[in-house]
């Protein structure tokens, strides 16, 4: 078997058609995950009773198990819950009508929530306590201080970590292939199976992931430079 270079280009074009779907599958969970992450991080920092130990377990479980397990657990677990609810309330809704994509996004969101909450927590804890005290001293409330002083600093410090998470979840979308979602890896497998050229198709999809990851990294680097401009030093 020799490598068919021309087919790599062909596959590249064919596979990159589903790039928007893959990006959607990667970006949505991370954005939703940031919301979950902020809430979880606050509860854990404040050490709220009952809720904090529960969320500790949530974070450690999702960080301690492979993402493919989250996808499978959501895919096989949620339909059972939905069916039970729909039978008890006599709804006309059936779990089989939920698109697979939704399960994947839900699973990735839960997973992203756990990862981002750790990032946000360490980001918030990295802001010196004096900042909060200074904000109190000029008469701000807790939520004002958080929104205007602490969180912006925490987020700007966490940009490299968020980039890693975004790239990590871009790569995690490849796991949706096991549920035969037509994202990059899934389409690559289809293209490969139709033409019986597996190596070429996977080289093509590898190049796409690589390119997208490189672009995300470059963008993040530019954003980071701009956002952290205030702490550059000098006058």
């Amino acid at each position, binding site marked *: *078997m020799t*490598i068919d270079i021309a087919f790599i280009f062909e596959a590249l074009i064919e596979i990159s058609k589903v790039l928007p779907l893959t990006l959607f599958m990667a970006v949505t969970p991370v954005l939703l995950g940031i919301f979950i992450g902020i809430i979880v991080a606050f509860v854990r920092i404040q050490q709220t009773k009952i809720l904090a130990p529960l969320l500790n377990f949530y974070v*450690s*479980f999702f960080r*301690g*198990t*492979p*993402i*493919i*397990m989250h996808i*499978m*657990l959501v895919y*096989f*677990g949620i339909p*059972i819950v939905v*069916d*039970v609810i729909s039978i008890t309330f006599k709804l006309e809704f059936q779990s089989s009508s939920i698109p697979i994509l939704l399960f994947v996004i839900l699973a990735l969101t839960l997973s992203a929530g756990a990862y981002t909450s750790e990032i946000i927590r360490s980001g918030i804890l990295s802001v010196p306590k004096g900042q909060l005290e200074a904000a109190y001293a000029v008469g701000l409330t807790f939520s004002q201080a958080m929104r205007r002083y602490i969180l912006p600093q925490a987020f700007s410090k966490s940009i490299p970590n968020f980039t890693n998470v975004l*790239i990590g979840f*871009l*790569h*995690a979308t*490849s*796991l949706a*292939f*096991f549920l035969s979602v037509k994202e990059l*890896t899934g389409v*690559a497998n289809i293209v490969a199976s139709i033409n019986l050229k*597996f*190596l070429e198709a*996977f*080289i093509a*999809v*590898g190049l796409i*992931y*690589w*390119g*997208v*990851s*490189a672009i995300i990294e470059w963008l993040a680097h530019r954003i980071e430079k701009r956002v952290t401009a205030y702490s550059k030093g000098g006058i």
Partner: protein
Amino acid sequence: MANDFDFTLIAKVLPILLQYLPVTLEILVFATFFGMLLGIVIAIPKLLHIPVLKHIITIYISFIRGTPVLVQLFLVFYGIPALLKLVHIDVTRMDAMYFVIITYTLSNSASFAEIFRAAILTVDRGQMEAAYSVGLSGIQAFLRIVLPQAIRVAFPNMANTMISSLKDTSLAFSIGVMDMVGRGETLIASTTRALEIYLALSIVYYVIVMLLEKGLKLNERYLNRYMPKEATSS
């Protein structure tokens, strides 16, 4: 489809899955060991600024970090036989285990190389100069002065890489390795109870990740035993 969730099934399949835990750990141990070796080898050209080699390695690292492990698995699985066919070696019947170990070695080596490089750069240049001034040779100074300090810095990141590598081994089944997840898939086929078996698998993974994390934390504390208290508290 009957949807009654069966807790006893989880208890029933756990021992069966645990029989395949050694396979998962075997992948982890080999991939970490060879990954570290390869990581050291590819960190050297970047540290010594060897012209062309440095750029090739930068591209290699960026490719490995820019692609999902799943795609890397497929690339190795289809790519290595194709490459070896050029020199007339037929490996298409080789055990899939080797492909898995090769993939995770490559994937770990990129992370380890970056970790080692960053760690060695954190050691102050003055340390090397001080070592020279008391008459150590270059290799002695590196092995006795710089490396122990670099390992201390690198260890938490190495531990993270090992843990994510352990979680990545869950994909080995996709090219046909009979590890825990692979056995789980066959159990699903025979029992048709996917949720319970994935839950059992998650429990096993969670427990071994937690144990590994605890072990690595202890080791980290051991490496930090000479550090003043403030520095180790973080």
